[in-house]
């Protein structure tokens, strides 16, 4: 047969030389050790360099060893595997570092005093003071933003899923997607342009409006997903009983999907709670306690972090406060996330079926 050339290129046996199962671990350990050795010998100070050397050694070492023992194709396969693992480790390192540093430095000044006092009488460079005013500001601004953004978002989603057909629905769907990508600072500039026209001074509610704009598309998308999970049979069963459509939506569709909708809103709240840029432009920041979101500058947690970092000329006390505020903010966001996921999981089986 003319395929003799083909068969010649293949191994005559099924048995291919292969490396033992522990090889990747051994190569990893070896490259880490070698990486540390080389770095220490060369006197490199940065851990980033140590890690890079070890990672490069790992990938190259895998290829070299596998190519020699198993052949080129297997070596490529192993390199792909090792690169994927390295990528995973590389992605986890910043997260671990960030969480670790925030906790380690944040707990230094985080106590009840810190949570219950403002910066009113404390200069930014001095120790002392707290984030009470920022927490108040954040809660009010985010609360008002949610009160505006969540209902509009949910109603829009209902329109898209329950009524939406034709060009209007298509346009809304497209612009909701585009709106998701608006940079937060642009939303801030939009409200700012209105304030310039009406010659207004910074106040909390202006920030809420910008945050609400950022929140709406997120709520629309997640609510849409949840409403689509509600089986059509349920709607038809209710409609067939002569229940008007709007009551069907209110009494059947929404209660069925309320868990998922809540989850989506909470995730959106978690996201806007960390926004700094619009607050910086519209609410301006204020070291004193201002309980009125409708008049006068306010503080907010993310803005507080930024201003402690930026306005304190490298003062250690200010950095400590910034980390402690970061820890508070992350804790808030993470708790919202966890609770939201909890609700989603708890409600999922009922709506999923």
């Amino acid at each position, binding site marked *: *047969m*003319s*395929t003799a*050339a*083909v068969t010649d*290129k293949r*191994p005559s046996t*099924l*048995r*291919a030389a292969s490396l033992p199962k522990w090889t990747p671990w051994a190569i990893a350990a070896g490259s880490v050790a070698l990486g540390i050795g080389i770095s220490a010998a060369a006197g490199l100070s940065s851990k980033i360099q140590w890690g890079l050397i070890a990672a490069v050694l790992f990938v190259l070492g895998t290829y070299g060893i596998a190519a020699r023992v198993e052949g080129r194709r297997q070596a490529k396969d192993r390199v792909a595997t090792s690169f994927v693992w390295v990528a995973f480790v590389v992605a986890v390192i910043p997260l671990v570092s960030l969480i670790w540093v925030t906790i380690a430095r944040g707990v230094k000044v985080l106590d009840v005093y810190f949570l219950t006092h403002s910066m009113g009488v404390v200069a930014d460079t001095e120790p002392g003071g707290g984030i009470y005013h920022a927490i108040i500001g954040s809660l009010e601004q985010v609360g008002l933003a949610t009160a505006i953004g969540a209902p509009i978002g949910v109603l829009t989603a209902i329109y898209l899923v329950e009524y939406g057909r034709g060009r209007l629905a298509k346009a809304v769907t497209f612009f909701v997607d585009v709106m998701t990508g608006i940079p937060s600072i642009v939303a801030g500039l939009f409200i700012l342009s209105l304030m310039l026209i009406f010659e207004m001074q910074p106040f909390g509610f202006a920030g809420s409006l910008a945050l609400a704009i950022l929140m709406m598309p997120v709520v629309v998308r997640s609510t849409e997903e949840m409403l689509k999970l509600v089986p059509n049979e349920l709607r038809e069963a209710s409609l067939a009983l002569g229940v008007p459509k709007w009551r069907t939506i209110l009494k059947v569709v929404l209660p069925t999907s309320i868990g998922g909708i809540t989850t989506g809103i909470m995730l959106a709240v978690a996201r806007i709670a960390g926004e700094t840029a619009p607050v910086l432009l519209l609410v301006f920041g204020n070291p004193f306690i201002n309980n009125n979101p409708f008049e006068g500058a306010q503080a907010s947690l993310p803005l507080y972090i930024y201003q402690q970092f930026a306005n304190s000329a490298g003062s250690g006390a200010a950095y400590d406060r910034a980390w402690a505020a970061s820890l508070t903010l992350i804790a808030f966001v993470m708790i919202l996330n966890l609770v939201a996921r909890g609700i989603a999981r708890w409600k999922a089986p009922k709506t999923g079926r």
Partner: protein
Amino acid sequence: MAKRIDVSGLTAYYGSHKAIEDISMTVEPRSVTAFIGPSGCGKSTFLRTLNRMHEVTPGGRVEGKVLLDDEDLYGAGVDPVSVRREVGMVFQRPNPFPTMSIFDNVAAGLRLNGNYRKSELNDIVEKSLKGANLWNEVKDRLSKPGSGLSGGQQQRLCIARAIAVEPKVLLMDEPCSALDPISTLAIEDLIGELKERFTIVIVTHNMQQAARVSDRTAFFNLAAVGQPGRLIEIDDTERIFSNPSVQATEDYISGRFG
């Protein structure tokens, strides 16, 4: 070229569920062996153990021996990748690579296995497409995507792709169940030609098809739903369809269940 398969005491699991139990049989080279049996009897699972595709399914696990000319596919140090190069497979639904041209689809396996000169590749692709009775239909559009062909043509393209790497054995998992009668006939004719060069194992739901194309037929059955599938008997196709030695086989073939 074609090789003999000797299976002894083969049991396959999905996680903790035993899908097939204690199967032993011999498949002769240069012949067509058909697997028949009711749904869920494990004939497809068994087929997939013959080229180690079963273990690709999460939780898939195999015990026992499958000898390919005296070499155990499940022996220590055997590379599943080289097993699949020796034992080709055609699936239920035609699955050409959607982003590749007809030519690239056929050449895909070759390109994995080594460096071929362009002329060498052209020859093998042409020969494989001719072998799959597809050459005349596609020779003018080799650079067009394979997904533009009809279902039957796609399936023959997949057969061409499988035979291009010159496997020893060709496994076919209900290759005609998604095709119309005319395409089915074309594939059946093709199987008749291919058995000159390959050992062919075909799973089919269609008993007439088994009777038409196969030299030997194996009947699989399961005692009850949830129970593992077993090999009831394997014999010459003529015998199975005229005078089987087990009552259950006769019941199934005469349409009393299944």
